[in-house]
Each structure stands twice: as C-alpha cells, then as structure tokens.
C-alpha cells in the first residue's frame, strides 16, 4: 500500500487546471476527493506521473439553479449534496442515493464529479444521473462542452472525458413532481452495491405515466432498463408493475465477482426494480 512516486499540482482555478492537464498529456490524473484514485495508487493499479488536485478550486463547489436546471459543481462533496436544500427539492433521487454512498467519512471527502468521472458502474451515482437525464459539462483547452449522461459513460472505468478535460459541473433537469427511490442491495453497509436501482416515476391519475430506471452494477457502464421503462407506462397496480419489471434485466451484462453471479444479479435487478418502482410510485 505504498504508492509509486508522482508529481503533484494543485491549481487554483479551472483554467489553470485545464492548462496543467493539457501540458501533462496522458500522464496526468485528476484528484478530486481521493476516494477512488488514492486506493488505486496505493494498490499500484495506477501510475500517473502527475496528480492534479482540483480540491481547492472554489468555483467547482456548490449548487445553484439555472431556470429549470439544477447545476451542481463537480467538487461538491457527497455530504453537501445530501444536505443541500435545492438538491433535496429538485433532485431528491440524487440526495437519497448519495446518502447510501459508503460511510460518513467517505461522504465528507468524496465528490459527485469524482464519482461520475471515475465511471465505476458499481458506483451509485452514475445510474442516478442517467435516470435523471443529466448532462455533464467538461472544460478543456477547446472550451466547454456538455455531454448527455447516456454518452458520458463509455466503458468500465472509462468516461467520455478527454485526458485534457476536466468535469466541471453536472446539470440536472429539475425532477419536481416525480416520485423517486434508490434501492441499493449490498452485502455490508460500506461495500459497493451488488445491484442498485434508481427509479423515477411520474404518475397520472393513479397510473404510471412515465418511469425512468437506472441500473447500478449491471454491466460495464450504468444502464437504463429501457424495456421495463416502456412496459411500466400505464401500469396501475402492484401486479401490473410486477409484470412490467420482468424485463428489467434485458440488455444487461452483469459481471461475475465475489459478491454475485450474473444470474443472481439479473434476478436482483428484477426484484429491486419492482421494489424501487413501487416505492417511487407510492404503491409500496
């Protein structure tokens, strides 16, 4: 658990951070809250020549409104996300899911942007941002660009960020009026989710008008349970929901690891989607 040697930079602004990254090329790694990168360094699974610590850039922290959009700075800690009144009002799903991340110590260090940029499909927040239809804003030498969550998570631990780009903020359409629930299944409180299901449900006249389901740890990237989402439209009771979620694992490719087999994960995806949707719809 001794990390290899690396250079360390601590830019004071986003511009300086982007410049530092651009100069370093592919050999730099961004350090946000350190909850993923430091273990990788200590286990000698990552060997960056330069670690760019963006933890002291004030403009990357905080939550604000922009019309119908909620804007969360990439370096906003999990703890701040959980307790922020704007997040709780307009993106309750994110607050609820973030409250399940690891333990208080991790939540005071770890950041939303760090978690998303790490692109771990077992992380809770990528699937949540996917379900919320968020956009991730990257800044690089060529300026700013917004990437839809569905395009951001490219592969296992791989995001759409270029090496010289920094994730600066997350933009979420306000989900006012949507019911929500994050159903996390994990063997011990501090472990990653074996499977997690993020559900957003809009009801209309006692029926589900629209459902959005994000799946945690059901493949190399966070996934939407699109077949189940379609089947849930119009569902009006627990039995119709139960039927609709039978397709929750369609199109997923869950991993085999010490926590679970793919077959079991697919089973969990169905059960947990049912529970999450019923809870989000207030039917549970």
């Amino acid at each position, binding site marked *: *658990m*001794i990390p*290899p*040697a690396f250079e360390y930079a601590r830019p004071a602004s986003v511009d300086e951070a982007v410049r530092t990254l651009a100069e370093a090329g592919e050999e730099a790694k961004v350090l946000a809250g350190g909850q993923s990168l430091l*273990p990788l360094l*200590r*286990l000698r699974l990552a060997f960056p020549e330069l670690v760019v610590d963006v933890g002291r850039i004030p403009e990357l922290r905080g939550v604000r409104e922009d019309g119908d959009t909620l804007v969360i700075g990439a370096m906003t800690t999990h703890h701040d996300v959980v307790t922020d009144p704007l997040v709780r009002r307009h993106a309750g799903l994110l607050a609820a899911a973030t409250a399940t991340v690891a*333990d208080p110590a991790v939540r005071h260090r770890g950041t939303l942007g760090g978690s998303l940029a790490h692109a771990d499909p077992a992380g809770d927040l990528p699937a949540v941002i996917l379900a919320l239809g968020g956009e991730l804003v990257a800044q690089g030498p060529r300026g700013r660009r917004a990437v839809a969550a569905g395009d951001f998570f490219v592969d296992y631990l791989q995001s759409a960020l270029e090496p010289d780009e920094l994730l600066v903020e997350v933009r979420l359409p306000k989900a006012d009026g949507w019911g929500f629930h994050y159903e996390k*299944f994990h*063997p*011990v*409180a*501090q*472990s*990653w989710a*074996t499977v997690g299901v993020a559900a957003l449900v809009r009801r209309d006249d006692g029926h589900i008008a629209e459902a959005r389901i994000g799946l945690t740890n059901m493949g190399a990237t966070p996934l939407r349970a699109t077949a189940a989402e379609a089947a849930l439209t119009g569902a009006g009771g627990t039995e119709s929901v139960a039927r609709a979620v039978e397709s929750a694992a369609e199109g997923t490719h869950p991993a085999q690891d*010490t*926590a*679970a*087999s793919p077959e*079991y994960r697919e*089973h*969990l995806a169905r*059960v*947990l989607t049912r529970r999450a949707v019923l809870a989000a719809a207030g039917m549970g």
Partner: protein
Amino acid sequence: MTDQAVQSEVGRARPRKEDARLITGQTNWTDNISVNGLLHLAILRSPMAHARIERVDVSPALERPGVVAAFSGRDLDGLGSLPCAWPVTEDIVLPDHPPIAVDEVRYAGDPVAVVVARDRYAAADALEAIEVDYEPLPPVLDLEAALAEGSPLVHSDKGTNRSYVWPLKTGEDFDSVRRRAEVTVKRRYVHQRLIPNAMEPRAVVVTPLAASGEYTLYSATQIPHILRIMLAVVTGIPEHKLRVIAPDVGGGFGSKLQVYGEEAIALAVARRIGRPVKWTESRSEGYLATHHGRGMIQDVEVAAMRDGRLLGLKVDLLTDMGAYLMLVTPGIPILGAFMYPAIYKMDSYDFTCTGVFTTRTPTDAYRGAGRPEATYAIERIMDELAAEVGLDPVELRRRNWIGHEEFPYTTIAGLTYDSGNYEAATGKALALFEYDKLRAEQADRTARGDSVRLGIGVSTYTEMCGLAPSRVLRDLRYAAGGWEAATIRMLPTGKVEVVTGTSPHGQGHVTSWSQIAADVLGVPFEDVEVVHGDTKAAPQGMDTYGSRSLVVGGAAVHHAAQKVVAKARKIAAHLLEASEQDLDFADGVFSVKGSPEARKTIQEVAFETFTSHDLPDGMEPTINAEHLVDPDNFSYPHGTHLCAVEVDTETGQTKIRSYVCVDDVGRVVNPMIVEGQVHGGLAQGIAQALFEEAVYDDEGNLVTGTMADYLVPSAADLPEFVTERTETPATSNPLGVKGVGEAGTIASTPAVVNAIVDALRPLGVHDVRMPCTPERVWRAVREARS
C-alpha cells in the same frame, strides 16, 4: 475504623486505564518507533501459489535510489526453519519452513527477497527491480483431492500432502451405538478460511548493538516471551543477548500468536548490516502473509434415540494447514477435539482429524482456535437432530445436557467440567429473547407464506479456556508449559507495580490486574501500574492467547499479592509488637485485634522495607513477591445464545432482528470489559456466519485480497446485542474466573446459521454454507423449491 468495608474493586465497571493513550495514539505502536539511522524493509512475495525458483537476482534493486541492501532467500541461508511447537503426533510430516523461500514458493505471498532502503517508498519501489524466474508447479487447493493418489505435492520430498492423522476414540464403539440407535443424522459442514483483521497491522523494529552483540526486537506480537526463545533458536542469537518488546499492540485475535518470517528476517538483516530496521505490513500484504484461520471440512454423525437422547458422536475432519506448519498450526483442530461433545452426555465419541497441506497461506490460531469449529458442528447437527426427531431445539438440548447437580462432570472426551449451570443460563436467555412470542410469529409467517421468513437459532456452547495445565500440554505433545507468572513490587512511596507475563493487546489487563491487586493489597486502584510485554522488565511469561490471561495470569497476580500481604504481616506484627495471629488485615490496614488504634498500613510497611531500620531479625528487606501458577484444570465458560433472523426469500438477504446471549464466564472482574469482549466476539462470529471468506481462484491466488472484497462487518451491519450473565464461579482458580476472550466468537456462528436454516426449513432447506451470503441463501431456497 468503621465496619463499612471499602467497595471491592473486583466486579466494578472501571473505565480502562490504558484507553486514553491507546485511543489517542499517544503510545508506542511498533510502527511509531523511530531510532537514528533506521532503515526500512520491503519484502518481495511470490505472485504464484506454487513454483520452483529458478533464479533470483536482487542486484538491479541495489541500483535504485535509497537502497542500502537486498537479499534473496539463499543470501540469508543461515536462518533456521521457522518453528512448529505443536507436532501433534509422533509421525507428523513437518516440513522445513525457511523465512524466505530458497528453492520453491508454496503460497501466493511466500517471501522471496527483501530490500533494505532509507524509506518505505524507496524500498517498495525497488521491489519492482528484483528479477525472479519461476517455474510454475501445480497448485494444491482441494483438501480431498490433495489426499488422493497422484495429487501434486506441496512438499514433494515428503511424498504426501497428509501432515498427520490424530484420533480420539472414547467410550463405547461408535459402530455399536449406531447399531442400537433409532436415529442417525450425518452432515458435512465446511468452515471457510478466515483472514484475521487486527486493527494494527503487524510491524517489527530491530535495533542492534553491534559492540556487545545485543539485539532489541520490537514486534506487534501477542507472545514476546515465546518469540524470544524461538527467534534465538531460528537466528542463532543467544537468548540472553536478545530482548523482545511487545509495545502496545492493537489487536491480534490469534494472528499475532506466531513466530513470523518477517521477525526472523528483520533480525537477520539488522545483524548482517549492523543497522536498525523496520518492517510494517500493509493491509493487503497482511492478507497474504499473516496466518489465516479456520479452513476445515467436517463430516459429523450423531446417533440417538427417538426421544432425542444422544448415544454417540462421530467426527471426521480434514483441516487445511496451508503450505507450512507454523507455531501451533497442527494443534488448532486438536484444541477443538475435546469440545465436540460440548455440554452433552453420550456413550461414544469417535474423532479423527487429518491435517492436509495446500498451497495457500498457512493457517493457525484465530479467535476460538478449534473451539468455534467444534461448537459449530455440534450445535448445527443438534438442530438437525431436533428436526429429525420432531423436538424443539432447546428441548433437545435440555434432554441431553449435563445437569447442574452433576458437576464436576467428566465428559466423554475426557475433560472434567468443574462447574456450570446450563439450565439457569438457558432459562434467562429464553425469557429475555421472548422465545415463545417469536416462535408464534414464525408460525404465523410460515402459515401466511410470507416472503420474509423468521428463523430462530440457538447455541448452547461451552469452551475450554485458561490454557493450560502443563501436564495436559505434555500429553498433547505441545512443546511448552501453560503456567503464568506475576510479580508485585511494592514501591517505597506505597505505590505498586504489577509485573505480568501475559501480554495484553487490547484486553485491558492493566485495568483488570490493577483491580485484582488493589483488592488483595487494599491499595487504591489508581496506585497500581502494570508492567508487561518486555522480556527485560517482565522476564517470565507464557503470553496471551486462548482466553488464558485472567484465568492463569490473573490468578498469579492474586497469589503474588497474597504473598506480599503475608510478608507485610510479619513486619507489621514486629512494628506493632503483636503476634501475626493477632493482626487483622482489611482495606490495606493491619490492626491489632481488640485495639484497632494500633495499626500500620501496607504502604507504611513498604516504606519500612525501604529504610530497613526496624525489621524483624533475619528478614529480607522486601515485601515484593513473585508467584507462578500452573493450573490443575481448564476453565469452562458456557452460555446460551439466541438469534432471530429475518430471511428475505426473494433476494436471500438476511437480517439479524434480535440477538440475546447469556454467558457464564464465572466471576466477573470488570463487567464493562466483559461486555466489550462479548460484543467483539459476537461481531467476529457473526462475520464468519454471514460475511467473511478468503476466496482463492483455481490457480491459488487470493481473490479477496483487500478489504473491498473481504467483507469485515461494521457496527452498521450488526444488531443491538442483549448481553446478560449468570455467574457460576470456576473452582480451579481462586478468583472463580473462566475467561471471556473467545466466548462470543465460539457461540454466535452456529446461532446465526441455525436461525437461517430454521427460517427456511419449512421450504425444505437443511443447510446453507458459510458465509451465508444472499446469493447462497437465494440458491438454497431456489433449489429446495425446485
């Protein structure tokens, strides 16, 4: 003087004296120790489970910045084999165990080379430069396959993977009781390997004094005294030139009851280069290199009558030794051998244990050490027998246990239980648990076909603690005795130093020993200090493991303190011009019977020995005293644990809803310490039932190599424990104590698994393999339903 006696210290929930410095870290953890010129070791370890070492070239590492030296196994060839102190049979296969592998590596993590550098970082970086050519050999991983004809061998020169076969057959022949039995139940249980997780990783510092050939070795160890002797043998450094210090040690659970290669390596390197060195393991390194626990297949059979009365028990064990026999590796299952019959009466016992080598990290003591395995087997199969004969599991136990009026009772395994009251502990536990109410809820859920089932698990355990009568150890072929030593030093100002041969690493001996000494001497608790863990300051001891410290070491403190009082009485009688028989002694004061104003405190007497101005003729000027205790018998804590588990049959998720334990650990010195021991023990036992497992892949690599994969539960994963006690004093020591370090671990594992199986039995489930992960539970339900 009033008649009101000072409140006895023993029995008080004193906050622990040592905690302020332990918790704030203002103490000497081994890794905190720094000396001038200190160099740091890093160890290159085998990435393969089994391979021949064709070549090791450490010279490229010497080119790296900050590197001072580097050695291969061959370079340190002068080191002897690491010791095994418990060759359990005469014909045991006991392979050499070089501290650094020379010709062959036999588990992933086996040391191959060592680098010495100016700092930890330089040492770790330089490991990557060392060149090693390995010729892969086949791994040996499956215990049954390892014994089959033609299996690859862990130690090819030994011609077998079988280390030993150890039988114990007592009473009527088991075949004979099987013939007259109305019911037999046979089951196979598997104990997964567990990885001990002490809060403080292992660490060692060696400071050499070249001019006089003296060495001081600091180690995060449970056994400074045993370590000193063993390292003298392994390294050839004369024992009197070697001082071993166990500074404050942050937990061990048996994993620091060991003579480790790294300790020998550090000593050898310090001697070779004449400089002080330090090695501290990382957590993931410890997962490979610190010994593991458990790892056993149990074939268990009970023979009984329809009314539930037990006739006999047959136990066949295959136990995973790992690649080498370490300090007490082969003895661990033997420690359990006497515990399978537990609290039950029967006519026949037939036990066999086979030790098997595999290409995995060696196993050795882990909290409970053989006794959790035994308790698990008997308590699990008692539930199966209860189901078979249609009795409530508690009733089945009641029909078979030793009645409180039958003590002392010699069990079928040959142990004499001195005391106990299983009825009382069980009665209290059932009441606290609201057993009948939970049974009613369980029946209701079953009747409704609820997807969340309720299960109730019981475990009525006993254990043998207070290791150990030396003659028994001789009969078990253990290479040392089981005595313990204490010295009381009365300082001129009336303060007291208790020197103990036990070596606390979290148990709170400083507090408990102070309480014991304060009571006998009649001095304030605050006036007592406890000296431990340094072979120079506390030269005699057998250290701390196996719930022995209070039972043997605490008794030694008690006796030594009584000797102090006896010596002080002579001086007091002289000073008071009275005969010894005419003196009362209470609360630290000698007074003359009938004239209580004529008095001397024990502190005044201590000062008198310092001046020696007016001592009785011919009396040595000291009231200090030493006492060594060699116990006549083990102690036998027992108790009843009840666990209620909710099982979600849809997902396999289990949730402990309530947990009640009533433990009888004899007389209690400090109730708060006892409760803490029980809580921690429960957590570790529950961890085996539900969470922890060292998983290896088919090549013999440890898959659960970090805490991200090896699931140590936290408080958030555990229920609120209801802990209560009954107090049936032990008769084998003057304090009436029995030991409590392992009770929770021993009792809880079967209580939890019994509860899970109990919940699912109506669905047709009869067992779930540990750890009972959600997926395993889900599969068990699915298979039973299909």
